[in-house]
Structures are given as structure tokens and as C-alpha cells.
């Protein structure tokens, strides 16, 4: 018997993870029922790995009613990209990869400097992919606890033709009655795990025994200390002169573009240890690991208005 079934018997209602999972399944099925051409964003990161398990629970034994899409900055950790491809193949689902580097070649993405973080440019490539395939809904793994601006975002979040989110003009969202209607050219962003926190994600990974890219677990890697954070030394992020390279035990809490994703010092090498560590941790996920977010309180909100996912 599955853990899910056991915990249902143990308590009168659903356990908190069962409830969150059930809500997320319900949301994905609403997308399938209401939208004609949805897509699920899959990066190989932990949140989107949970999303794939939820999609399995929502649609198996059928195929997913949507393909998977990764907007690749070209600066991703090898382990994550390999994992992404392997997981999509195991599931037998279609994976579409669109690359920020292609947008750069087309001239639609122009970098201010060659080593500029490319995360914020993902929005251009995403909008290009939406147009290319005519997607009317993009399902993503963002959570409301990640950042202040997200705390008010709807689960079904409407975007205009330019992919913009207008926080002042959101659709009321009541009960579990979601409104995914849009006109041609407009788009819904749908966040089935809006109500999850980082610890919920880890607990779910543990319960479902989900495989993760190895860099989520403690490993030794060369780093430098810069601007109060740890920066991995890689081909695209070399050490600057005068910096000392240290070999430290670290793990990543989020995996994104190499240039702006920093690890934390840790020797947690299992999911259980990560949960124990997360439970007592004192820095929010984004604060610790997204170097590009620290500019201002409002930086995420600004980017979302510009069509960032």
C-alpha cells in the first residue's frame, strides 16, 4: 500500500502533504479540462520534479495532456540538464527545449555584458516559445512563500499579450473555481504548488522517494566568497584575481543559471538530513541562493511585470 493510502487511514482528514498534493492534482486537471494547448515548465529543479510526480498522479495511466518545456539559459549545471533529459525519457513524455542562446543569436535577447546573469532573459525566450507553439497556459512550479510579490499572485494568473502580470488587475479567485479563460494571444500562468513551502517540497520528495540531480546533496566543490555569498568556480564563473578558491562541502537549494545560483555550506547528503537542516535554517531560499534577487525588495515584482515567469 502506498504511503498516501496509509496516512489517510491514520487521520480523519487528509494529512497536510496529501491535501497539498490533492489540490495540485485538481489544479492540473483543471488546466487539462479548460485549456486547449497547455505546457508544463520543467527545469530539472526540485519544484518541477514534484510537479512531474503530481502530473503522473493526475493523469496516469494516460499520457500527460501537455508537453514539457525547458527554457535553457545555456548556463545550467550538467547534472541538472542530464537529469532533465533522463526524467523526460523515463516518463515517455515530450520535452521541448528552447534556448536563451538562440534568442541571443536572433537578436531578441541582448546582453549588457557577456557575464550578465541570463535568468531574466528567460522571459523573452519563454514568450517566443509560447508564440511558436501557441500555448494558452504554462504550468509552473513557483510557490507563494518564495518571495513577497508572489504572496498575492493567483493560482491561475493571467498574462496579457506581452506576458505581463498586472498585480492591480488580477481576477478574483474563489473556492476552487478557477477561471482559465483567455483570448488568443493571451496566456495563463498556472501554479499548482502555490501553497507549498520549501519544507513541504522536501517532505514530498522524501515521501514519494523522488530522485533529484546530485547537486542538491552535499558535495565538495571549488568556491569563492563574494558579496556575502558563496560562488561556485566554473568555466562561466571563474575566480577573480585576488580571490581565494576554497574546496567546501556545499549543496544547492535551487538550481538555476550558474551565474546567479549559489550553494549553501552543508553536509546534508540525504533528503532526511536536508529536511532537518531546512527546518532550522535561518535564511530564505531566494535570499541564500539567488544572487540577482538581492538588489531590492521589489526586484521580483518588477521582473514579473516584465513577463518573467
Amino acid at each position: 500500500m502506498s504511503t498516501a493510502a496509509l496516512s489517510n487511514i491514520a487521520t480523519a482528514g487528509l494529512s497536510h502533504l496529501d491535501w497539498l498534493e490533492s489540490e495540485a492534482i485538481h489544479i492540473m486537471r483543471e488546466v487539462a479540462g479548460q485549456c486547449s494547448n497547455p505546457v508544463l515548465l520543467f527545469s530539472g529543479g526540485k519544484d518541477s520534479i514534484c510537479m512531474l510526480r503530481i502530473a503522473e498522479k493526475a493523469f496516469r495511466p494516460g499520457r500527460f495532456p501537455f508537453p514539457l518545456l525547458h527554457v535553457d539559459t545555456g548556463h545550467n549545471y550538467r547534472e541538472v540538464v542530464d537529469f532533465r533529459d533522463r526524467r523526460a525519457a523515463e516518463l515517455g513524455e515530450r520535452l521541448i527545449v528552447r534556448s536563451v542562446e538562440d534568442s541571443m543569436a536572433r537578436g531578441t535577447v541582448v546582453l549588457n555584458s557577456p557575464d550578465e546573469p541570463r535568468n531574466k532573459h528567460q522571459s523573452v525566450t519563454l514568450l517566443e516559445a509560447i508564440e511558436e507553439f501557441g500555448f494558452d497556459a504554462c504550468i509552473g512550479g513557483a510557490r507563494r512563500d518564495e518571495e513577497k510579490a508572489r504572496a498575492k499572485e493567483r493560482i491561475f494568473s493571467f498574462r496579457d499579450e506581452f506576458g505581463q502580470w498586472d498585480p492591480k488587475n488580477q481576477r478574483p479567485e474563489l473556492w476552487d473555481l478557477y477561471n482559465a479563460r483567455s483570448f488568443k494571444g493571451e496566456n495563463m500562468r498556472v501554479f499548482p504548488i502555490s501553497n507549498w513551502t520549501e519544507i513541504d517540497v522536501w517532505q514530498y520528495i522524501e515521501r514519494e522517494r523522488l530522485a533529484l540531480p546530485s547537486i542538491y546533496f552535499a558535495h565538495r566543490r571549488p568556491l569563492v566568497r563574494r558579496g556575502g555569498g558563496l560562488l561556485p568556480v566554473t568555466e562561466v564563473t571563474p575566480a577573480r584575481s585576488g580571490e581565494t578558491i576554497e574546496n567546501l562541502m556545499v549543496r544547492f537549494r535551487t538550481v538555476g543559471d550558474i551565474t546567479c545560483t549559489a550553494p549553501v555550506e552543508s553536509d546534508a547528503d540525504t533528503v532526511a538530513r536536508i529536511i532537518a537542516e531546512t527546518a532550522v535554517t535561518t535564511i530564505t531560499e531566494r535570499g541564500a541562493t539567488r544572487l540577482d534577487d538581492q538588489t531590492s525588495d521589489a526586484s521580483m515584482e518588477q521582473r514579473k511585470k516584465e513577463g518573467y515567469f
Partner: protein
Amino acid sequence: MSAIEKLPGSSVPDNGLLRFLTCGSVDDGKSTLIGRLLFDSKTILADTLHAIERTSAKRGLDMVDLSLLTDGLQAEREQGITIDVAYRYFTTGTRKYIIADAPGHEQYTRNMVTAASTADLAIILIDARKGVLTQTRRHSYLAHLLGIPHIVVAVNKMDLVDYAQEPFAAIAAEYLAFASRLGIADVRFLPMSALRGDMIVERGEHLHWYDGPTLLDILETAPAIHGAHAEKFRFPVQYVCRPQDSANPELHDYRGFMGRVESGELSIGDAVTVLPSGRETSVRDIQVLGESLARAIAEQSVTILLEDEIDVSRGDMIVKSGELPTIGKQIDAMLCWLSESPLDPRRKYLLRHTTRDSKAMLAGISFRVDVNTMEQQPAERLAMNDIARVRFKLAQPIFADPYAESRGTGAFIVIDESSNNTVGAGMIV
């Protein structure tokens, strides 16, 4: 050890999830209370705390303003007010909480209605110095209208009335008088100081005369919305799984009806009726990802397989035979209008109820409710934030229960097809 000191981990017994709503007039201490809950449950993390310390200092405050934690968007920060529903999370290790933070301004009835639609419990804040206000009545009325079963009246700022029992008792007596007129049954009173932290998580030093539970104790033990009473089984079909193209011949005839149990429970073998066809059959299997479940309970997302081959599609509903909902093309409901453009009695709208859509037209407004006095007034049209008793005529039948019995099958939204916006929220009476 208080619940809050336990680490969230898989070994701790899981008491599920509770969604609650905080409401109060401006400056009653709502943001401070939420900040306090997050702070005492160690949900506020170091970098966030540094950020609000910086902001507090920049604004010339001499102590950290916990209310800054719940500040949302840039535009609102500039205006210095909260204007939309925000959701916050904390966990005690035994229970996970989702707080809907609804702003208390006059014109934002619709935000409160939105926040209340998913809440199991409402905390209504009253400033101990000010007592029961018009807003208190309005919030209580809306919480009750939206079917929130538990109401906690939190009398805040007790430190400013010397932690004395008299003002607290007077407020409780006044509140009870109008709550009973409204028909609010489950209400508890709690004296507290959000600023000092008395009776939130810790009991504090000053409220010796109060021997009831702290706010957190109330939250930890409040029963969730389902399960307390026998409910009828309701399963709106969201999606039909027919994997015929699969290479696996066993799946050739597979037809799974996918959805979430809105209320009640279902076991394998139960006799069911499919609506609207009225065809009867029984449950062959209940599945999640290839595993059979002996039964499905409220709020669980499952796939149901039926004994007989019956045509079922999205928008249909599976119920237990002998427990049919009301099937009809006319509904009477309490309607909250959410849109800046008023309800137009000549226009057709789209009404979405469970997974079913139908064209709908207003057939009459019985009365509008003044949310401050709860008086019923005649009305010709409805503007934003109005609440009224209305009748709709529908093009398609819906399968409905009174909202007071079942939120899932008693609620609907109204969509304006010219903008695709959600413009109304209704509760079937």
C-alpha cells in the same frame, strides 16, 4: 515543549492543514498578529528579518515593525496600505497553516469574500479600546455568509487597557448579542496583545483572569471543515482518462473519471448515479497512480472506474444513489458582485459551478443587504461589493446543494465573456 518548538519532520503526527482568515479594521493589529505568528513559529527567516529591520529603521521606528512582514506589492507599499488578499504560511510541526490576509478597508468587501471562500476559521480582531465597530459586524456577517464554521473574536491591544477583564467582558457580551441574531453558532473570545505576544503562542504574564486556550491552542485543535458531520458524496468530473492509444492492450477499455471529492466519501462497490444522465452503476475501483484505494474521502483527488460502460464527460457529476442533489435550471443565491462594471440584468453571463459551465441570466433581485446594518433593501442593479439575494435562469441544468450544506456544490462564480473576467461569486440558498 510547546507545539511550536517541534521541528517539522516526517516523524511528527500530522494534523492536516487549516486555512484561516484574519480580519479587522485598519490599525486593529492584523499585520502585527500575523507577523507575531510567523515570528513565534520561527517562520521568519534571517534575511527577511534584516530587510524589515532596515525598513523599520528607515521609517524612524525604534522597534522592529512585525507588520512589515505582511506587506505586499510595491504600489501598495508606496500607498502604505494593503489592498489585495495575500497568503502566508507557517507550520507548528503538527499542523500546516495557510493564512489569508484580507485588508479591512470599506470598499474591499470583495477581497474579504475571496479570502473567506477557502477559510475554515476566521479571526476577527477588535481593538480593546474601541470595542465592536461597524466593520466588526460586517466582517462577522461576511464570514458567516461564506460559511466559515469557526469564529475567533480576538480582543487585541489588551496592554492599552491595563489587561483589565471588564472591557473584554463588555465586548464579548455586545458581540454575542448580534452574533446570535446572525445565527453564528461557534464563536470564541480571546484577550491578547499582538505587539507584546500575550495569548498568541505564549500566555504572557498579564492575563491571569483568562483561563481559556491561547490563539495557537485554538488553531491547533480546530476541526477541519470536512468530516465533522455526515456529508453527501459529490464528485464533479474534471477529466476523462481514455488511454486507448497506449501500447498496453489492458488499457484499451480503460475509462477513468478523474476529479476531486468535494464532500462525503466513497468506497469500492458503492452504488452511484451519474448526472445528468441519471444512469446508475457501481464503483469498480478507486485509483491513484495505479494503486487501488479502498475508499476516497473529502478533498482527495482520485480516479473512479465504474462497473458499467456509461458515457461520462467533464461537467458531469458522480453521486451516491439515493443522495441526489437538486437538479435544475433556476437557482436562488446570495451573490457578491466583484466587478467595477455593474451587473447588467439584460446581459447573458457564464455561470461556473463545479466543473460545469452554463449561460445564465438574472431573473430578479429580491433584496440587497447593507453589510453594515444587515438590513435588506430593494435594488435594481448591483455594483462592485454589493451583496444581494438573486435568482438566475440557466441554459443548462446544474446539480447543486445549498451552500450551507456543501461549499463545493453550493458555490459558483459568474464570468463576463466579453472580458473573461470573474465578476461575481454566488452561494446557493
